[in-house]
């Protein structure tokens, strides 16, 4: 199935891309997606992804279709829009 991923802030800068379409297997969870992203962007992901612990290094917000999701087992569906936002502070 095809899902969309939108990166913000320094995620977008590091990966050099904003919106992406990605084919993932049916039954793909949010956690599965993160591993997949780490595989795709291995060299660029190194600043934001801890390959040993398999977690993001910095805090961030994950939204799926406009809603915050905290559960890595959350099941993605065809056409889901996954949004990844790192911490952003203005002053």
């Amino acid at each position, binding site marked *: 199935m095809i899902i969309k991923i939108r990166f913000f*802030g320094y995620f977008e800068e590091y990966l050099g891309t904003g919106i992406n379409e990605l084919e993932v297997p049916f039954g793909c969870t949010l956690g599965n997606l993160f591993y997949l992203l780490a595989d795709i962007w291995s060299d660029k992901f190194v600043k934001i992804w801890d390959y040993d612990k398999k977690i993001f290094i910095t805090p961030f917000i994950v939204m799926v279709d406009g809603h*915050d999701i905290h559960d890595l087992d959350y099941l993605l569906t065809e056409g889901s829009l996954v949004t990844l936002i790192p911490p*952003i*502070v*203005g002053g």
Partner: protein
Amino acid sequence: MKGYWSKLLRIDLTTEKITNENIPQSYFEDYIGGSCLGIRLIYDEMDPSIDPFSPEALLLFVTGPVTASPLGTAGRFQVVFKSPQTGILCDSSSGGFWGTELKNAGYDVLLIKGKANHPVYISIFDDVVQIRSAEHLMGLTTFETRDHLIEENRNLKARVLCIGPAGENLTLYSNLMNDEARMVGRGGPGGVMGSKNLKAIVVRGTRKVELFGEEEFKKFAIHLNKLSATAPGIDNLRKYGTAEVMDNAWPTSDIPVKNWSVGSYEELTLPLGGKLMKATMLKHHVGCYHCTIGCSRWVQIREGKYQMDAPGPEYETLGAMGTLCMINDLEAVSYAAHLCNAYGLDTISYGSSIAFAMECYEKRLLTDQETEGIRMTWGNKDVLVDLVKQVAYKEGFGKFVGLGVKRMSEIIKKDSDKFAVHVKGMEVPMHDPRAYFSWASNYATSPRGACHLHGMSAIYENSNDPIPDWDLKGYYPRHSNETKGKITRLAQNWSHIIDSMVVCYFASFQMTPSDLVNLINLATGMNLSVMKLCEIGDRINALHRVFNYRCGTRAIDDNLPERLLTPLESGGAANQVPDLDYQLKEYYEIRGWEKDGKPSKSSLQKLGLDDVINDLYSR
């Protein structure tokens, strides 16, 4: 004690008496420096009931133990005063180079009292301190004043802090500018300086304070500077400035829109973002003393009616004067912000007041007659530009807008308080408590009124083990009220320490409490621990609260306007509302505050503030 001169320069403008005083070492041990030291000094000397514009009111400029050191962004300083806008004690900070010069001139604190009988400015060149006539500077903008004084003093290395026409006219949210548009923005310090007939302070210092562990400090500072320079996110801040919030935060709805009534959306925010600014008008980046980040912009607009070649707007300005007013023209907002800098107005309060007036106009609570024919319609960028001068000079409808949201609402009445977005008279900064729930208790209890800089609590939400050194472990989603009272307390304590050292928040993001302790100990020779540091944060918060309580602040004032407790219908925070009462209950318990909002006797005793108990409990 190393890291300090232990010197306070006192200038009484009424008597023209200039004296040097020693600061007791215990004050540095208990309050470190910066705003915390300033608050203690004001507490000792100033009656809380004093009118902020009276000659007896004090105005303090305070540096910290790391000011002018090799630590990145160590050029900051704090200004402490009773705010004419809120009627409570306010501390406000600024970056640039002015603080470095004050420290290098040999002073930790500059205390100003009294009122000159004619306009003056102060010049400080190491030991040579003079009160000089400023008659010829009156009416000049901040930029003109700075240029004039650099030339007049024939010293290109001197730094200038000054007020614009807004400060001269005692506009309630007038500010101070130092260097190139570094602003002491909030609370109205410009009017306090104006009330003393003091137009500017020029300073140049050629000395260097000795640090306790000079070499070790330098090594550690360089290590932290590298961390700051290379941390994830800092690249973006350098590239796009704080305006990047407009590019990236809209999905969370942290950006307020249409006087806080609509969730943020990209069609409105992206045209105000850092990417567009970089592509269309960025001339170069601007950094403060020893800065490894360079978050500020210098912009140039070459054509059209908004031509300018000046410092560019920060996120807070873009929010208050942009999205909040439904204006997404970057050139117009940049130009209006430049005018605010020139005339000396706080852009958050100015933009918020315009947005409030626009909503009143839409609801027909303000008529064309009352606005003197100005059509205060949403998105009207001419209004945004044209009213700056009127507000600064208290002319026409600008005189009303210059009162700020709280006072405007009190005059208009008719339930306008429901959408008058301020806390304790301070207009709310551009981060929404419905997007990050911790902003709720943070804004409600912030010691100077709604403030995102006295506790950047939101950065601890959606984060694993946010401050393990201070026992803040776990994960706290932004739309949960759990532990947000505790997060607020620790975020505020962190800010109190940062403001006492005095360090930039952006640099501090890469630091832990252990790092701060290490810096202070290496600079001063103190032997602080991480928990002792937290206690100092508690102490200053309590002392600030006691002062404010004596000014009349009560628990009922620890509140949010109805608008911020009303769910948004769209965006990334739709249908979300923080439970302020729940958060406040936890916060009050942790702080040891009583139901009416005053710190309990036992909490004050625990913090070594026995000397202030009588001030509070004899009333």
